[in-house]
């Protein structure tokens, strides 16, 4: 009797832990983490999207980033969603939002309130309005201070950059 019960527990354990394996847990980070991502140079493509749960245009373009992650999961595409929500709303707002919307991409909440100290380091042309997106492919960096209005618009930028 003991044996099936332990299998039962094991199944419970695996089914419970699975989503955590699939989805990287959201984390609170300082700018140094983002800065090292921005200096990331490898043969994989990095897409960093700056957003917030309260930002309507950000939320409406999120599905396109999720779709990108889904469609290019086998290829070398790394997607990171940098939340600019307030740190105190991480548990009460950001985490529930991620769960409710089944966000599969990695979410990092950037806790660095002196915006002026780091905006230029992301891109000198960025005014600070969100959404904003950085694409890094090898030595090439592209910056977009805009909302993507369709999945195709986003994919058309990413597709040619992926090394086959």
């Amino acid at each position, binding site marked *: 009797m003991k044996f099936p019960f332990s299998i039962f527990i094991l199944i419970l354990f695996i089914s419970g832990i699975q989503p955590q394996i699939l989805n990287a847990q959201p984390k609170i980070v300082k700018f140094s983490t983002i800065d090292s991502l921005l200096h990331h140079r490898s043969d994989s493509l990095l897409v960093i999207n700056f957003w917030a749960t309260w*930002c*309507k245009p950000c939320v409406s373009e999120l599905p396109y980033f999720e779709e990108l992650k889904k469609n290019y999961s086998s290829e070398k595409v790394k997607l990171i969603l940098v939340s600019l929500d307030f740190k*105190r709303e991480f548990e009460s707002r950001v985490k529930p939002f991620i769960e409710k919307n089944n966000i599969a991409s990695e979410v990092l909440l950037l806790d660095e309130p*002196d*915006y002026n100290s780091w905006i230029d380091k992301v891109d000198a042309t960025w*005014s*600070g*309005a*969100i959404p904003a997106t950085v694409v890094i492919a090898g030595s090439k960096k592209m910056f977009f201070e805009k909302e993507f209005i369709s999945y195709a618009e986003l994919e058309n930028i990413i597709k040619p950059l992926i090394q086959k």
Partner: protein
Amino acid sequence: MKTILLSIAVLCCSLLLISATPDAYAPGSKATDFKLKNVDGKMVSLADYKDAQGFIVTFTCNHCPFSKAYEDRIIGLHNKYAAKGYPVVAINSNDKTIAPEDSYEGMIERAKEKKFPFVYLYDESQEIAKTYGATRTPHMYILKKEGKDLVVKYVGAIDDNSDDPSMVTKKYLENAMDEILAGKEVSTSSTKAIGCTIKWKGTK
């Protein structure tokens, strides 16, 4: 010959593109006056303020969490600097079809709720936000009267902590204001901040 003509054509096109992009105001730019409707129904121009030495212009709105977080501090700026010749002039340029809360009626309501001691103007055509080069809310400009001109002395953020006023360590705008009042050059005349985008007509 064809290649030369083509390159000239390309050059002309690119020059046209460059000149068609309006330049955002930077410190030293001469700012334009305007005539916009206040929440009390009256039309307001900067020229109406005969005694002012300048203005703290803020592009803001009703719905944006950053604008809301800064409302009390903007009221504080007006209370501190209006008597010294620099009243706050708040402008909402958002398209109400994208952000319904930012309609003229919404502005009247918000101004009443928060008892704004300053004018809150509706830039319905979005011309003023475009001319100033405002991109987000709140986006601040300090203008100083110099002869007949309104010269931009500061562009950017209010301070270095939108969420928690008690954690502010750098009062960017107040520092600039105090330097102006002391007759000094503004040491940090341009800063950046995260904010909500101005909701432009036809973008959605």
